[in-house]
């Protein structure tokens, strides 16, 4: 065996190193009361990881095609590592509570190992490696969801998550077995070639694809595979919800797109029709449910389902522009959503652990800066210029319309109408903060410097990622 192959998977190798360092650091310092250095250490390591992924641009493969990476996957890895960095920065406040501080090390280890799983998943060249990566990402995720198990409904949320995760893995494996039975290989390249050549039973291949799609649909929480989302998002610790809603979703969406476009390219007409239906359902149903929510984390759960629908629009175009649009959308979604979750997190902290929307009544009068940042983030999510969200939405629509069929235009139209509905419910929060007056408005509070730093990064992203086209160009160059 040629050990130099490991050099081809530098982002994964360094991530592994980060994991080991964090583990040792945690092990050595276990039992100490104050570990002020711990969070900065982990953040610095993750920053190094971001830089390592950023400079890694070549397309390489290792282990006989099991591991394949492309420039666009590297871009996505960088984006996800950067998103994880924001989560880690933001998590400090939550992790310094007496009931969580002893779990600080575990939190970091679990987060890093999920990220490692996602990286594996994105650069898999074989269905089995892909599956291992997926499991590596979901099992630690369940632990993360359960991290607050004595508070709220964290344990319930984790149970729901793990049950759905195993179920969806089962469905996906079933689909993979169909494919294997039909074409006789699980290497992505070979499957694509054999499918194109017409090998195997077409019906079985399509069924395999559909099962595979449903399995990933659970991870991305597309309708009709979304039932776990609201409960899990509500029950999980807020920081974890943020992580779950952006990083995990982004990785799964990117992988699904890559596999649909590369492996299932010969079946394009089938999965395109399937996507039309799933997208329209996801966006519309999630939006209608979101309107009725009064609990902010549940609300964000439905918002994230509809965002997932928008993300999948990029796949319809089946083009390089689509890949760029999806990665760009995820990047913008990461900063906007993490800003919202940072605010939710500090407000929850100062409101006795309650995340009802009523807590935001009159919020602007008492905490103008936080309210203003929240407004920017919500505007970005709703797709209002000059914030980045509008650009990412527009490019997604462009990528979908590029396909040119009447059906694609119809789906884009429905998605566009839905942006108005989504604007309505995002404005409800803005309205609560600015317009509604409440005698019980939260008193003025100061947020810690980590939250400030996370919010500053997110806000800079929201403001600049759209207007400065260099970010888009960077992603476009890789795809």
């Amino acid at each position, binding site marked *: 065996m040629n050990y130099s192959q490991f050099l081809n998977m530098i982002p994964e190798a360094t991530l592994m190193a980060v994991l080991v360092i964090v583990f040792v650091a945690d092990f050595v310092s276990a039992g100490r009361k104050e570990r002020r250095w711990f969070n900065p250490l982990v953040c610095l390591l993750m920053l190094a990881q971001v830089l390592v992924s950023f400079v890694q641009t070549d397309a390489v493969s290792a282990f006989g095609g099991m591991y394949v990476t492309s420039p666009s996957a590297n871009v996505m890895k960088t984006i996800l590592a950067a998103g994880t960095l924001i989560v880690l920065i933001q998590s400090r406040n939550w992790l310094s509570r007496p009931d969580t501080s002893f779990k600080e090390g575990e939190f970091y280890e679990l987060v890093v190992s999920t990220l490692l799983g996602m990286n594996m998943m994105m650069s898999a060249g074989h269905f089995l490696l892909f599956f291992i990566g997926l499991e590596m990402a979901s099992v630690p995720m369940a632990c993360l969801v359960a991290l607050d198990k004595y508070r709220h409904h964290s344990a319930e949320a984790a149970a729901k998550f793990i049950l759905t995760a195993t179920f969806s893995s089962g469905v996906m494996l079933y689909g993979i077995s169909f494919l294997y039975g039909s074409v006789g290989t699980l290497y992505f390249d070979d499957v694509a070639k054999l499918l194109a050549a017409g090998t195997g039973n077409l019906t079985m291949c399509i069924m395999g694809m559909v099962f595979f799609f449903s399995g990933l649909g659970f991870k991305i929480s597309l309708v009709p595979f979304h039932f776990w989302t609201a409960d899990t998002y509500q029950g999980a610790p807020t920081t974890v919800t943020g992580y779950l809603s952006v990083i995990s979703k982004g990785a799964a969406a990117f992988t699904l797109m890559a596999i649909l476009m590369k492996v299932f390219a010969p079946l394009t007409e089938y999965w395109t029709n399937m996507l039309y239906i799933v997208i329209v359902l996801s966006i519309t149903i999630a939006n209608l449910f979101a309107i009725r929510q009064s609990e902010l984390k549940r609300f964000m759960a439905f918002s994230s389902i509809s965002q997932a629908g928008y993300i999948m629009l990029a796949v319809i175009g089946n083009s390089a522009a689509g890949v760029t649009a999806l990665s760009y959308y995820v990047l913008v979604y990461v900063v906007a959503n993490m800003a919202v979750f940072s605010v939710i997190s500090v407000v929850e902290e100062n409101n006795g652990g309650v995340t009802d929307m009523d807590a935001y009544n009159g919020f602007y009068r008492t905490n103008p800066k936080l309210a203003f940042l929240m407004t920017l983030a919500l505007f970005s999510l709703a797709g209002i210029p000059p914030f980045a969200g509008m650009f990412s939405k527009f490019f997604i*629509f462009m990528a979908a319309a590029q396909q040119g069929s009447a059906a694609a235009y119809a789906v*884009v139209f429905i998605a*566009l109408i839905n942006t108005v509905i989504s604007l309505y419910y995002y404005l409800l929060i803005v309205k609560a903060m600015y317009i509604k007056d409440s005698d019980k408005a939260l008193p003025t509070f100061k947020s810690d410097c980590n939250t400030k730093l996370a919010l500053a990064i997110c806000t800079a992203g929201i403001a600049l990622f759209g207007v400065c086209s260099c970010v888009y160009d960077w992603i476009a160059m890789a795809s």
Partner: protein
Amino acid sequence: MSILSLFVVIPVLMLLGLWLSRNLNQVRGVMVAGSTCLLLLSVWLTVTFVQMRGAGNTDAMLFTYSVPWFKPLNIAYSVGVDGISVVMLLLSSIIVFTGTFASWQLKPMTKEYFLWFTLLSTGVYGFFISIDLFTMFVFYEVALIPMYLLIGVWGSGNKEYAAMKLTLMLMGGSALLILGILGIYFFSGADTMNVLEIAAKHNIPVEVQKVFFPFIFIGFGVLGALFPFHTWSPDGHASAPTAVSMLHAGVLMKLGGYGCFRVAMFLLPEAARELSWIFLILTTISVVYGALSACVQTDLKYINAYSSVSHCGLVLFALLMMTRTACTGAILQMLSHGLMTALFFALIGMIYGRTHTRDIRKLGGLMKIMPFLSVGYVIAGLANLGLPGFSGFIAEMTIFVGSFENADTFHRTATIIACTSIVVTAVYILRVVGKILFQKVADPHYETLTDATWDERFSVCCLIFSVAGFGLAPLWASNVIGDAVGPILQNIL
């Protein structure tokens, strides 16, 4: 770097200045300095533009400048102005300038108010200078969203409802626009978003044009108060604070008409010709229905809002007539209505700030108490009903003459029906003037009220001079506009 970019740079600097300012005086200082710069800039631009045209420069757009923005998607930051944009920029600057003075006394949260107000004007200026579909759209939306907070936070009456309704309806319009823009981009060959280049290619199949024309026309038409999508306008205007009503009715609604002309009709000319009859019927309804509704309202702002529906309907009506005279009239009407309406809303805001009611049944005899504001109101009213000497007369005259140039029965019938609105306008204007300015003082408590303060007088005088100025010397404007309308109509006919 084109000089036009200053129209975006200055407001952005103003935003920065407002962000940094510590007290009320600094906020006011930034606003006055910024809006004065913008006013001077647009006056300079107008004069230079007229001179350059006079010197024989016949390019479609002057001061053009283009720099790639999102290169893989052929999106560029392209700017340029023709006669239409020049007068629109002048209009915007006048309204922003006077709007600043009209909200001199505004409280609370003055700084935040001016921040959103300036963001709104950034969008307006950016929209009028851009000639790239994407850039145009970005600025268009930038101009819409601040309305939500401006009305919701600083408005009056049923403000939450009005703000939400307005925002959602206008955003619904822009959702249609995105689809239309995508359609134009992809079916014209997907290699440019520049309006002039797309128009020059003139290669979109007619069937495709017919699909996307309604999207774009209605998308912009929502903002131009096209019947039946005008319902946001009365509620929105009635609830908005004074300067926002001024800016909204005065400038923002013009974005609708401008967009219909520049994008829908210019880029989809065949569809415009074939489908114009549907929209002509709708705009005729707008014109008459708006005027009749104004007659039965009792709230001053509602009266004016419906009057705006009628007058903005007239803009779209004239554009759809597609003769050079009518289209020139349409742009003149945008200019004239913008100034008149801003004047009206400013005066109504000032009266409301004193009497705390806008119900005409509770007002009366204001001429004795606040003569300055009342005289201003009479002037605004006379300009609105098209008295010669004011800008309204020039615009409406041009529109109806131009519309009648179409020799067929359909167009002439529509013109005659629309003409009736002139009479109805006189009815609702004179009814209000008679009721609130003359007669007995309705409430003894009104006797203690004061007349306009210096900042209000300044704002009102500026607007009256502009209205009268365009009324007395309209020729340069109609020449500049006519030159710009020509090439666009050539594409259609």
